[in-house]
């Protein structure tokens, strides 16, 4: 069975930001963060430049928001080019997926998918010190799982322009997009 966190190289890049071996020994909060991610963390939003999650701990909910710097314009352009090239070489990818080759391509071009902890601007409603608190770590684990499920999210987090997702399903119209005034047409 695939790893619980970081089953794909895309999610793994995010896991590595908190399980980094370069720091002085492993963070003692990580086991608890994984438990929280597993059981009580709900990512409420994950889009270009930010992630928000609710982490429930003994009846209370901590709200976490992490702001992620988007890629500079030239990096976004480069990423878009690499995505287009990879998708052309891998026609018929399943919806929301990206070829793992692309992740290697990004690394070769020094484009980092994930954001190192020290470059993230994170906030949590808990009072714990030091930062990042266990709730922020849990949020990153949960984010890694979302990225595993839909690798395209990895690129969306860092770029507003690199179009990797297909447009909304043309066969359906979401109710909230409908204007009640014109619904019956007369």
């Amino acid at each position, binding site marked *: 069975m695939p790893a619980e966190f970081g089953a794909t190289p895309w999610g793994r890049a995010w896991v590595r930001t908190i399980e980094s071996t370069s720091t002085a020994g492993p963070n003692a909060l990580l086991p608890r963060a994984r438990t929280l991610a597993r059981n009580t963390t709900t990512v409420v939003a994950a889009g270009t430049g930010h992630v928000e999650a609710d982490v429930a701990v003994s009846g209370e909910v901590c709200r976490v928001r992490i702001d992620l710097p988007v890629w500079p314009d030239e990096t976004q352009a480069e990423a878009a080019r690499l995505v287009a090239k990879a998708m052309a070489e891998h026609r018929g990818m399943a919806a929301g997926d990206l070829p793992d080759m692309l992740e290697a391509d990004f690394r070769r071009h020094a484009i980092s998918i994930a954001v190192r902890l020290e470059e993230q601007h994170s906030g949590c409603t808990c009072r714990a010190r030091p930062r990042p608190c266990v709730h922020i770590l849990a949020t990153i684990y949960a984010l890694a799982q979302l990225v595993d499920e839909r690798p395209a999210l990895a690129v969306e987090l860092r770029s507003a322009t690199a179009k990797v997702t297909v447009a909304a399903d043309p066969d359906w119209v979401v*109710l909230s997009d409908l204007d009640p005034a014109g619904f019956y047409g007369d």
Partner: protein
Amino acid sequence: MTELSGRLQATFVPAEDAIAWWGVAELDDAVREHGLPMGRPGVCRLAVADRDGVRPASVPVRFADLDAARQGLLMLDPRARVGASLRAWRDAARLLDADDEAFGWLGARMPPAAHAVLNADGTAITAAPTLLAQFRQAVATRIALRSTGIATELRPYQVHGVAWLSARPGLGHGGILADEMGLGKTVQAICMLATRRSAAPHLVICPTSLIGNWRRELARFAPATPVVGYHGASRALPQSYSPGTVVVTSYPVLRKDEPLANTAWDVVILDEAQQIKNPEALASRAAAQLSAAVRIAMTGTPVENRLEELWSVLNVTNPGLLGTRGRFRQRFVAPIEQRRSATAAAALNRMVGPHLLRRTKAEVAADLPPKQYSTIVCTMTDEQARLYREAVGKAFAAGLGDGIERSGRVLALLTALKQICNHPAQYLHEDTAQPGRSGKFDRATEMLTEVVEQDDRVLVFTQYRAMGELLSKHFGTALGVGPIPFLHGGLSTQRRDQLVHAFQEDDDAPPVLLLSLRAAGFGLNLTRASHVMHYDRWWNPAVEEQATDRAHRIGQLRTLNVHTLVTGGTIEDHIAQMHENKRGVAEIVSGDTQAALARLSDDDLHAVLALDPGAFA
């Protein structure tokens, strides 16, 4: 309360193969006033609008059959004060022979009410161009069905199924027809094949035990369709095909057959697609490599809940849809099975939904009769055919005598033949009945597996104590639901009551109950069963019906499916056909079948008993 628009609305509802009239309080009056067909009453999930927004609702409607609705729309008074949605569908009815551009314009100006059909979770409605395309497909399907001379009246959900299947080739990919058992998947597939008279032949792949049934059903529902059986050692594909030819073969043949692999097929149907649930299996690989315009899988088991199997089947019908197997595990299997990820499950549903059509009996209950009968023609194994021929040959060679002696000998021969049809182990007095030796036995196992997986309950009748014991033992291991009880005359009244009570009341009791036909004549109330299977024939329809009624209660809302197993080409089959056609020796049809057979001349008797080679070709 639904905010009504005040004017009569119309929406095409593909699943009902009908146009729904709705939107006013006095619906029946409004429909009548405008001279539209009344259709059948129903409740439909539609989007409605009020001051606050657009929301999902259960709306009372009248469903007008598509043909009648089109006629009504064409006749509609142009000055009629009706909703814009209704006028839009009148325009659609007029446009039918028009080009795509005209439909494009119509799609652009249809109000949402005209395409207010909700998705399963009530968050979105079908886009106008999509619904118009489905409307055109449905109309084209009906026209094609009429001109092909399909010899049956399809139910509305079945017409929708045929339209759904027929749309697959144009969309460039296959799909899975996963209707619950008893809803008529086979007839829908046959209609799809029969209405596609392509130059390239079609291929049906099914378990060996079902080959005879497919051929029979093709001949019954689509008599004009050329059919070629392709199995057995001396099998051969024809040099050329007349348009729309259907070749019927089995999974064991598919596994390693070059001619099948070298033919360019139009539609390939994979019946009982559990056979390709393992992607490593030879059959799965061979199916994926067939050259075909489109591959359709059929299964009654809810594959959508078994992710690895779902991947395997879709890998054949819709290659690439779910990505590679390894990636599918990373993205979906691990998240959904290990941590019940709602996002992964929702994403998977969105990806698979358009390619899988599953209706349950509960969903289409309004279309179903209280009792639905089906005869399943099972194909003999080589061992059965050999034993059967030997038994007939020996009996006639020894002579049957006359008078009382003749009755006795004919009866003994009939019993032997029926035992061979059931399972060679019954005939040979063996303790255990293995799979692979009897078509009927294998088919019964497959069907019961499906029933059990659907969480339904089933009664299985046999007239033989020995066969009941063999079935009980086999099902006990094959179905994985614990020991299967057998209610027969040798049990104490108390024990019988216990079995009946457990079946009716106990949620943990096995969902299968075997009964001896004789012991189950009266007084048993087993209405919790939604399926009845007659494993062998009593040849007295009244007795069989009495047994069937153990599970049927007048006024019962749920449909009872009655499945009768028959071994193709044998005495079972001959007599079943006489009963069905009400033709043949009068006493065989109406009276004591066995006594009537004993009175036949040797030649006539031989004609009834001998194995019909046509059933094997």
